[in-house]
């Protein structure tokens, strides 16, 4: 059985767990480094990126997460998790895992009164062309991507909100709050544990 860890330092980790359990995946909460052992994938959830980053540093999780990703284990960051995966956060110095060649801007749309829901087109879902409900909460935006990064989703006005770089996935929005499990199944396909899902791990976004 596929075993996915969800970083449970702070934020919406239970929501990810619930979606994964619905897909019959074994889930474990990760708060300390030894809990990263024997995982087929890791999700860094939404929350406050400053809080999650400080706790990750304080409890020695940054380097073990980097090592996990270097070994090829898929890692997915949603919202705050995407910030923590980024190489650089424009305008802020904060603790980052820093594995993805992307520059992100925090609170790029403004404060909570500017949080929004908007339908997204996700070419990576292949034949399933139904729009995906994008829930953006004080959301970050990807300002620039390096050459090895595949853009999966753009907002209608062009902003980059989902990317993939090999075994790393990042979304500025919150699929765990929608009741639509397609992004979770896409991530599971990356782990190789969801061959029967009909979704392939090979992306179909723009390069």
């Amino acid at each position, binding site marked *: 059985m596929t075993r996915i860890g969800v970083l449970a*330092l702070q934020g*919406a980790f239970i*929501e990810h767990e619930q979606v994964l359990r619905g897909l019959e995946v074994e889930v474990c909460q990760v708060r300390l480094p030894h809990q990263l052992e024997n995982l087929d994938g890791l999700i860094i959830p*939404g*929350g406050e990126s400053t809080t999650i980053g400080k706790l990750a540093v304080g409890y020695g999780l940054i380097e073990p997460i980097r090592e996990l990703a270097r070994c090829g284990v898929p890692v997915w960051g949603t919202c*705050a998790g995407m910030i923590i995966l980024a190489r650089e956060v424009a305008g802020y110095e904060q603790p980052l895992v820093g594995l993805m060649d992307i520059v992100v801007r925090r609170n790029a749309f403004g404060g909570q009164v500017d949080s929004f829901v908007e339908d997204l087109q996700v070419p990576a879902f292949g034949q399933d062309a139904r729009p995906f409900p994008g*829930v953006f909460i004080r959301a970050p935006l990807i300002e620039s991507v390096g050459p090895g990064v595949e853009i999966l989703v753009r907002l209608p006005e062009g902003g980059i909100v989902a990317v993939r770089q090999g075994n790393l996935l990042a979304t500025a929005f919150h699929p765990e709050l929608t009741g639509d499990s397609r992004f979770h199944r896409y991530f599971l396909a990356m782990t190789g544990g969801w061959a029967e899902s009909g979704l392939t791990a090979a992306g179909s976004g723009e390069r």
Partner: protein
Amino acid sequence: MARVTGNWTVKVGLAQMLKGGVIMDVVTPEHARIAEDAGAVAVMALERVPADIRAHGGVARMSDPELILRIKEAVSIPVMAKCRIGHFVEAQVLEAIPVDYIDESEVLTPADEEHHIDKHAFTVPFVCGCRNLGEALRRIGEGAAMIRTKGEAGTGNVVEAVRHARAVLGEIRRLQSMAPEELMAAAKDMGAPYELVVEVARLGRLPVVNFAAGGIATPADAALMMQLGMDGVFVGSGIFKSADPARRAKAIVEATTHYNDPKIIAEVSKGLGEAMPGLEIAAIPAAERLAERGW
């Protein structure tokens, strides 16, 4: 669907992102930076912490928008602010600033003793206090997207927060054991909207995030509230009325994350210095008990 702001998903969603975290009362931009550095998930911008409101007496009102703006500029995390119960114009002002969350709070002097604010009318989400499940569901019915226990603010005494948390969580467990035809009588008894009573019975929890507040002063207090089943904690006077706010703030954040790990709670509790001075609830005259405000 075209872009929609201020709907229920994004209002409840921000509270979901705050879960497992600590929201700290701050009265200056310097406090706000200390809170953010310690790992707070949000700050509550105030002119006085509840212990000082209690000591000061008189009418406590919404904070000066200038102070709230200066605190907003100081940090990158969400900034909340309090308005008086029923004072919908204070809420309009806070939305115009804008803050990220409004606490319609019994810590301030109520502006209306019969009506709370129609919170559905706002884009900015609201958190409200409660002492029991009926009160929580009345506030959610009015549009609150997050609930907290009232506890007894400014006392450094966790007993009322525990009482209110146990009341809410115990009443939810009771609803879960009921036959469907018993839920209408339960709704009538607790004075709560029937649809929400049915939803709570089905979910086994509130339909919104549920934090602890009112009297939390130590890392062990925070972990106690988390083990009882709360989603996170507000710490008001407990941090900046203590001997070493920066260390205590960080310790409470770590105890909230590792609430099930007594060894870590012991470690972070070492050498924090004096906690805030505590108040025995029985020593507070009934008229000065903040939790009695609102219904």
